[in-house]
């Protein structure tokens, strides 16, 4: 028998052994994802940690009924209220989020109750967000149960809010028009600020774009890094780190990331702002209240968003531009808000700032890009 046949025989035997082991002693999570029962994933809630971990596992498995039934204070709210607390009352990023992982930290424990911190990391189409809940866990007989701190969303009373903000509609050039007739002019936009920085993850090109026209624009920015000999190194777009719909005279920051590129390699940068005339509405108006710059350690910008319009904003993206004392751009950060913005109801935001840049920051400017279900933009 030659070496090749021997190797094949060994691999086949190992495969058979591993399949047999996996069948006889399966991993619990594998059993569940293969369509088996999920009871094996849960342990008896004999300690506060186990009670919280079981709750987290049930939330992760979307077993809402069992999660609700396990709570000690379920009489205080209904199962739909518990579900809405986790997935949002209105369509939002939470609606289609899945619990990626969770972490449990004990804060305090006595013989009959305990305080635990639960960090829930949710996955969404725009990245992950963390939801931290401080839970009270109480002993009930021989097991522990979680006292869920339900966050009730405020609702404005039924009313009519008259909205008469401007709306722009566009009629484009048609097939029947003669070849000389001009189409509607694309909006005139201008990059008013641009600043590249070198970070550990690569080059970050930041800047601000102004719609200097009198019509709304759908905008994006593309940057091409050129080597010192003029050859292109990389080309990237701003993707979602920009407020794509710009009303007349509105300014948006933008961020373009070039991973694995060092600024020392770059000779020049070619910027290409793009704009398209689109139908848009001047509604909704979002006020960014109580913005507070928190210096290092844990540098951040915190504040609240207040939807001053009558419609629910399903997804809000906060973008902040940070400047130094000379008004030079230092950093651009952003955060998606995981809950819908109800009319007249403030929602908090928190934008982390790199520690090394935080000490340069003296001022900031914040804009909010919004998406509302049912509106054109």
């Amino acid at each position, binding site marked *: 028998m030659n070496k090749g046949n021997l190797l094949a025989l060994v691999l086949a035997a190992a495969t058979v052994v591993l399949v047999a082991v996996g069948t006889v002693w399966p991993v619990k999570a594998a059993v569940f994802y293969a369509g088996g029962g999920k009871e094996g994933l849960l342990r008896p809630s004999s300690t506060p940690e186990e009670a919280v971990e079981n709750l987290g596992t049930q939330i992760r498995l979307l077993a809402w009924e069992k999660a609700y039934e396990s709570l000690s204070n379920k009489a205080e709210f209904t199962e739909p209220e518990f579900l809405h607390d986790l997935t949002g009352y209105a369509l939002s990023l939470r609606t289609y989020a899945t619990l990626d992982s969770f972490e449990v930290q004990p804060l305090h424990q006595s013989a009959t109750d305990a305080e635990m911190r639960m960090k829930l990391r949710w996955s969404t189409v725009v990245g992950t967000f963390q939801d931290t809940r401080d839970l009270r866990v109480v002993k009930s007989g021989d097991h522990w149960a979680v006292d869920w701190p339900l966050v009730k969303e405020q609702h404005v009373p039924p009313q009519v809010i008259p909205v*008469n*903000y*401007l709306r*722009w509609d566009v009629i484009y050039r048609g097939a029947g028009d*003669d*070849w*000389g*007739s*001009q*189409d*509607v*002019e694309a909006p005139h936009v201008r990059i*008013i600020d641009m600043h590249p920085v070198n970070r550990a993850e690569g080059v970050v090109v930041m800047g601000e774009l*102004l*719609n*200097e*026209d*009198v*019509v*709304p624009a759908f905008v994006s920015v593309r940057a091409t890094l050129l080597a010192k000999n003029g050859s292109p190194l990389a080309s990237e777009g701003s993707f979602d780190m920009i407020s794509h719909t710009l*009303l*007349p*005279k*509105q*300014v948006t920051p933008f961020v373009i990331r070039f991973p694995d590129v060092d600024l020392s390699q770059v000779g020049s940068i070619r910027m290409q702002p793009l704009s398209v005339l689109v139908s848009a509405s*001047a509604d909704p*108006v*979002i*006020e*960014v*209240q*109580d*913005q*507070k*710059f928190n210096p290092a350690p844990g540098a951040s910008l915190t*504040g609240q968003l207040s939807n*001053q319009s009558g419609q629910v904003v399903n997804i809000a993206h906060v973008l902040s531009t940070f400047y130094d004392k000379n008004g030079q751009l230092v950093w651009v950060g952003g955060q998606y808000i995981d809950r819908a913005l109800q009319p007249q109801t403030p929602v908090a935001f928190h934008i982390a700032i790199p520690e090394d840049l935080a000490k340069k920051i003296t001022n*900031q*400017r*914040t*804009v909010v890009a919004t998406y509302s279900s049912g509106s054109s933009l």
Partner: protein
Amino acid sequence: MLIGLALAAVSMAPAQSVHMSLPPSVTAGSAFSIPTAGSGKAVLYIVGQGQAIRRDVQMGEATMFPAGALYNAGEYLAILVNGASTESAGFYVSPAPQPETLGFLAKPSRLPVGIRGGISGAVYVFDTYHNLITTPLPVSLELANASGTMQSHTITTRNGVAWTTMDSAAKEGPAKFVARIAGVSSTRVIDQVPGDPCGLTITARPNNGKVTVQTAPVHDCSGNPIPDGTIVTFTETYNDQQSTVDVPIKQGIARVDMPAYPGAKISVASGVVAGNEIRWGGGK
């Protein structure tokens, strides 16, 4: 295939004398004839700009081509084939002298007021058959504003094209840009829009525990009202905190309710234009 046959016929060596008299120039779309000399029957091919014609001809007679037979301006090749004998010659079909349509490119369709040379118009003059008329012709270009003022230039076409630039007016509104030649005209509309806001000012007054901040009617430096929907940014700074809100202009002004903090500084800006700053004195 007809062109191939014609070219194949040209490549054959002449063995018998044929003769045709071509007109020095033919006007596109007009009737013309090609007289021939000799006897017997022959075939006449005319090949040119997107057209190929085949005619059986009686030598010694003129072959008539009715109006509209050749309508594309440019160089043509006439080939007369009589048995093994071939004669070929070129002739030119020129555009009709009478303009029928204008191709009028006016750029941009929208621009701010008071831009010198900001509007350009290029006119292409065509005959009935869409041939570019290359002989010099005077074209009148007029830009009439809604206020009644008018700029007018008369330009002579060169190689079929005439172009000029005009200034946008100081007053906003649509302007009619008309190109005219020999009874034919083409109109474009240029939207002249206000420029950047000028002299942006705000006032504030208390309103149920909040402060209502509003701009004076917002105009550009020529006095044109800034259109509704234009974003005005209000910024309130207080106790190391800040509130900002982007508000669209509505009915000529922008207005917002902001938190009322005594001593807060409230400023206003629109695009890259900053306005005044006020200090909220708690009811004053």
